[in-house]
């Protein structure tokens, strides 16, 4: 197996809640956004992180980028604990770990030309390079992301470009410092469906050519199944299942994953599959249920006549014969 490029060890992220209660001595409420998450991302892979809104997937992404400080735990990047590095080192690391956000209408500064958007990271991280080298790197980043003719595009502003082109600019900007690892947070959800394939294909091509590794954050399970090597499923800040993409979808073990997979809308009418529709919504991460956090919505728990253990003990991740697919359920 390939080496791990990124490893999270028991990461917890808590946010204090502004309760409007200014009296001292009252207990401060906290949101447990991420609650003890450990996983590795292997060099060259695409690991998809899926889950519903509020499950902590974006928070984990931002924690790896150190845009959010973890309350507890370590994040290792290429053999170094990056939760402890100092400011100057962190700057260096930032060039190796980059991000692509969801909304290319908001992630690009409308007042900068495409050239300036792409040149800015270079000016910050390698102020010593010459103007001509800067130009050639900007042009080649545009070319690598299929923004042609590159010289013409470089002079334009974001509002001149379509959504797909803007997302290409965002990708070019994230690649200009030649990172090893990319966190992509819903990179195609804002784009029209017919454009998505091109952007995803570009991401795959760049993995081949530049040896990139991706953490691919998405709420779309069928997309995760199609593009990723492995899938990680989160529920209320904890991993409920992780494994090979195909087996997580087609041989899902955790009752939550099984329910999610059963309701993926399919582009074919009149199929006869049994949908497991969970009632209610994900509970608030302020009051996480004791024992198994999925229990209050768990259909399997009801089917098994409400076993005691689910209320008493939080299930850990356990293997499924092979260590490559594990899930957190007592059953």
């Amino acid at each position, binding site marked *: 197996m390939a080496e791990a490029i990124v490893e999270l060890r028991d990461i917890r992220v808590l946010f204090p809640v502004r309760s409007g209660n200014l009296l001292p001595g009252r207990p401060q409420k906290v949101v447990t956004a991420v609650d003890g998450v450990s996983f590795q991302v292997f060099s060259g892979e695409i690991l998809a992180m899926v889950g519903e809104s509020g499950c902590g997937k974006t928070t984990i992404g931002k924690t790896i980028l150190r845009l959010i400080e973890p309350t507890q735990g370590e994040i290792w990047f290429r053999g170094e604990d990056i939760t402890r590095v100092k400011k100057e080192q962190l700057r260096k690391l930032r060039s190796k770990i980059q991000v692509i956000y969801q909304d290319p209408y908001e992630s690009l500064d409308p007042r900068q030309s495409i050239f300036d958007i792409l040149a800015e990271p270079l000016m910050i991280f390698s102020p010593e390079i010459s103007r001509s080298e800067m130009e050639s790197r900007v042009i080649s980043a545009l070319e690598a992301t299929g923004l042609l003719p590159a010289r013409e595009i470089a002079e334009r502003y974001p509002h001149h470009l379509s959504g797909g082109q803007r997302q290409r600019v965002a990708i070019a900007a994230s690649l200009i410092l030649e990172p090893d690892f990319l966190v992509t947070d819903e990179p195609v959800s804002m784009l029209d*469906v017919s454009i998505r394939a091109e952007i995803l294909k570009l991401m795959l091509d760049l993995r081949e050519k530049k040896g990139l590794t991706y953490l691919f954050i998405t709420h779309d399970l069928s997309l995760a199944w199609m593009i990723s090597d492995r899938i990680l499923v989160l529920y209320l800040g904890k991993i409920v299942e992780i494994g090979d993409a195909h087996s997580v979808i087609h041989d899902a073990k955790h009752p939550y994953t099984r329910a999610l997979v059963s309701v993926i809308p399919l582009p074919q009418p009149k199929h006869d599959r049994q949908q497991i529709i969970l009632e209610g919504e994900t509970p608030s991460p302020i009051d996480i249920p004791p024992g198994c956090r999925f229990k209050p919505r768990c259909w399997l728990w009801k089917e098994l006549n409400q076993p005691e253990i689910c209320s008493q003990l939080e299930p850990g991740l356990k293997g499924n014969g092979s260590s490559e697919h594990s899930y957190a359920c007592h059953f």
Partner: protein
Amino acid sequence: MLLQVQDLAIQFTSKAGIVHAVEGVSLELAAGEVLGLAGESGCGKTTTALAIPRLLPRNATVLNGKVLFEEEDLLQKTDSDMERVRWSKISIVFQGSMNALNPVINIGDQIAESITYHEPGVSKSEIKERTAQLLEYVGISPNRIRSYPHELSGGMRQRVLIAMSLTCNPKLVIADEPVTALDVMIQAQILNLLKTLRDKLDLSMILISHDLSVIAETCDRVAIMYAGKVVEQGSAEDLFGNPCHPYSTGLLKSFPNIYSQREFISGIPGYPPNLLDPPEGCRFYDRCPSRMEICQQVEPKSIFTSKGHQVACHLFQEKPHG
């Protein structure tokens, strides 16, 4: 037929010029049916749907066409007659559950408002009873009747919007992207709710979505729009089982299906044409993988390839049908 839209053409006046948003759109909807309007942003699906209850913005002009609802042309009705059609015959679940509700009025009062407006004279106690019942229909506990929109989740707000659309027992409900931006599980809950309500209340529906999977899960018939035109229309089985128009085929291949081969989605390279100056000939010409010379010059007419299955593409020729 409950609804027949015939040869509808709509344009918008904007600073940049005249946008030819919808041209030559014809649709049919039988009572009890769910029609899906599919297509990407800017294809004219919302514009077409809003033209039915005459709710287009002021800068829009209907140039041509008929909207026959129960055999009456809605476009010929006076404004006050139209008010009697809206909500009591045709209602809408507007797009964007986050913005479609008034943040400073509780949900009970918002639902009650449409009853008071459209059915003056209904007693207060009856309004209260009906509001509570509507909330129950859509799966919200009636004791939340005094909740404000910000106290509800996205899924719950969508349920409130659905309840609002049902206040005056309409025959036709138009739902504009009712599950977009909702989580998968909530999406399934809402789609299920729509199916249940349709059976229980004997509704006809027009469901607008860019997501063909959502359309496939819920619709009996489907119309696919591209750049202001309907390019293909037919039963869901025909459209998903035997798509004809190259745009439909391409769009279908843009959605991964976890129960088929695990292959990469193909997408459609390029962008839709600018509707300020739509091209002559077929509007899909620039992006079409099967384009021919004729396509650039002559606009394809919509023809039947089989009973109930229409396509507007030069690759297909009319077959006799009975």
